[in-house]
């Protein structure tokens, strides 16, 4: 049967056909179209819809995970920042304490050294005074000796050997007593 005869038959026989046949329903065509639709569904699902939905879900999961991670990192960062600030405060307080302690110690040390220096100076002064005194005494003794010698010599010259030993001794003692005064 050619196409033309088929169509002519279709056109002329419409009135005799049943309702489904007049609407073009045909078991063979129905099966073919069902197969066509099944093929479309399979292609669409396995080549397009499934990979796309899978990728969308994967990306959504990745984004959710990233957001969760970012939140966790943010929380950790805030905690670290707080910890850092606390440590910094502690360190500052400790440093202040150390500086204060150093100041106090330095002050104390200064005071101590001052006192020590003062006492040392006093000791040196005392020693100097003592030494001066000793030297003075020594000098006085030497002067006395020298003076006695001088007086004796002078008197010997003046009296030209007219005086005895007793008179010499008395004169010497008197001279020494006056010198002491």
């Amino acid at each position: 049967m050619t196409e033309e005869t088929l169509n002519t038959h279709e056109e002329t026989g419409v009135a005799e056909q049943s309702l489904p046949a007049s609407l073009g329903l045909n078991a063979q065509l129905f099966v073919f179209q069902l197969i066509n639709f099944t093929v479309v569904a399979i292609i669409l699902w396995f080549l397009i819809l499934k990979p796309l939905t899978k990728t969308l879900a994967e990306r959504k999961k990745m984004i959710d995970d990233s957001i969760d991670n970012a939140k966790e990192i943010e929380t950790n960062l805030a905690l670290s920042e707080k910890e850092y600030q606390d440590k910094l405060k502690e360190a500052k307080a400790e440093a202040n304490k150390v500086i204060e302690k150093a100041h106090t110690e330095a002050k104390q040390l200064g005071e101590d050294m001052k006192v020590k220096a003062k006492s040392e100076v006093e000791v040196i002064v005392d020693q100097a005074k003592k030494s001066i005194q000793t030297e003075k005494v020594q000098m006085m003794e030497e002067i006395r000796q020298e003076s006695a010698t001088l007086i004796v010599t002078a008197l010997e010259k003046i009296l030209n050997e007219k005086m005895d030993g007793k008179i010499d001794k008395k004169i010497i003692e008197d001279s020494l007593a006056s010198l002491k005064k």
Partner: protein
Amino acid sequence: MSAEIHIPTLAPEAVFHIGNLNITNTMVNAWLAIVIFLILGIFIKRSISLKPGKLQNASEFFLDTLLGYFDQVTGDRKKTIRFLPIVGAIFFFILLSNWLGLLPGTGSITVGHNMLLRPANTDLNLTLAMALVSVIGSHLYAFATIGVFTHLGKFVQIKNVFKSFKKFKNGIGEGFIAVFAAIIEFGVGLIEIVSEVAKVVSLSLRLFGNIFAGEILISVISALVAAFVPTPFMLLEILVGVIQATVFAMLTLVYMTVATSVPHGDEEEAHH
């Protein structure tokens, strides 16, 4: 002006034969859609990655928008994804088939006396096949989700009739009311079976009627005035293509969502 108006017949026209098999122009259109989906699918499948390219980006945007609408019906993305193999295929196939009907050459390229290309959805065989897949698919999903007997119980509500007899213990009046209500529910269940058939008929005829009417309209207008005048009608057909694809897919989704929901009485029993 003596333009020949070629009005399509209700039945698709055979354009060639393979042995005893008639290959109709609507099947050629369906195959064209299959080839387009296959090429698109191969491109998408080969290039798919978490960092999308242009094609994947456009496809994802389109799909994600569609899934958003589907979610409004199902109320759950998991359910939407579960129904997507059928609902998605229905939506995209109807949409592409309808738009392919607007391609230049549809209705004008002829083989013998017949058009080589004709919108696939102007074939009642295809719309009926999709409607049957939609309705039977919804029942299969229901069997898998809520159980065979629970789902069949929606249509053959004999359980309530037996239960109603127990109400006589509380008094004759209450018993009669319970039996009367159970018989009405049993009748409603039987009507539901008819409504399932009506779903198939309405789905298939609605799509077929709309697309067939659009095809006739464009054929007539194009035959009367070849240039410019058919353009607004073709733009209208683009819109009709989207609307019909959406209506068919959304109704399928509603059927599936309703079918997979636990019946009201059983839900209450489960809570008690």
